[in-house]
């Protein structure tokens, strides 16, 4: 084989490599802490692959080819280890309950309130959202005020304990967002609550 012929073959190989689609994007769905799995639809043009089982993956090449796959734990760690290690502490939501027509916590919730501080202390940086709620006894306007009062009372107690006010947002949802669905004018202790989210 002559040198020029070799060069010709090399050129053909190079052109083939260029035309070959390259790995472009890899997507993998991961199980949540409780083992449940969400769903991601990966679309390219008019093709879509749905990923909804643990470690289901799809590779999309630069030419638009979709290649379904399953990535085992080691492969996930190799591809995503640094990003996985950088994940923030997930937001946590605490639900605390109140006495009837009051911004006083029930005895059980008063004890549980300490867990909020433990959670805050575990974070290098945090924001806190406090959302107040009521049951459907009394008028909606009164319940709006009561729910805001509950949220502000809890916000105040966080501030008194040294949580900077600028990190706290408090608002009331009245009887608009029931934990337990009831008709109007129904006493329901589980609806007299605040939801505190630390993130």
């Amino acid at each position, binding site marked *: 084989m002559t040198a020029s012929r070799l060069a010709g073959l090399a050129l053909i190989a190079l052109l083939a490599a260029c035309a070959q689609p390259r790995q472009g994007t890899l*997507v993998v769905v991961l199980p949540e802490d409780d083992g449940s799995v*969400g769903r991601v639809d990966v*679309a390219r043009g008019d093709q879509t692959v749905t990923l909804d089982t643990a470690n289901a993956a799809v590779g999309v090449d630069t030419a638009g080819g979709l290649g379904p796959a399953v990535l085992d734990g080691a492969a996930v760690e190799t591809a995503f280890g640094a990003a996985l*290690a950088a994940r923030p502490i997930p937001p946590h939501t605490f639900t605390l309950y109140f006495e009837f027509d009051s911004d006083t916590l029930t005895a059980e919730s008063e004890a549980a309130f300490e867990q909020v501080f433990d959670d805050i202390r575990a974070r290098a940086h945090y924001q806190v959202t406090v959302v107040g709620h009521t049951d459907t006894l009394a008028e909606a306007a009164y319940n709006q005020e009561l729910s805001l009062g509950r949220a502000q009372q809890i916000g105040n107690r966080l501030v008194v304990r040294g949580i900077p*006010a600028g990190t706290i947002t408090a608002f009331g949802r009245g009887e608009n967002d029931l934990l337990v669905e009831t008709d109007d004018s129904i006493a329901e202790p589980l609806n007299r609550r605040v939801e505190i989210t630390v993130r």
Partner: protein
Amino acid sequence: MTRWFAGALVAALVIGAGAAEAADAIGHVKTIQGAVTVQRDAALPASVGLPIMAEDVIETGPDGSVGITFTDGSTMALGPDSRLVVSEYSFDSAAFTGDFAAELSAGTLVVDAGDIARTAPDAMRITTPDAVLGVRGTVFAVKVEPRS
């Protein structure tokens, strides 16, 4: 929504500053390793607590990684040599609904989707040079291979 107000003047001033920032902040940097910049009007060196705004461009260096928590409870973490643009973000914290679009043009991204993804099937979208991801929830990872 009623923003927080306390009685003391000093506290009120501090809160005022917090409220002004919070009006625009869609998230905050929570974890950081190595070189990470946020491109806004200029390139800001990122640090824990830095507010993130809509249209920010977040970039990590070869040794960099960063974790961000958004106001809807979503978290995003970038590995090394990554570039993410938060192209659209809105969230109604009373109704727990909103719209979230981001573009990953390089590197690795791990997402834990929050309230916005529960709003509607196409409320949260991630685009890469090769694909569009419609996010229904919850935890997933995306890698964009180097183009060169």
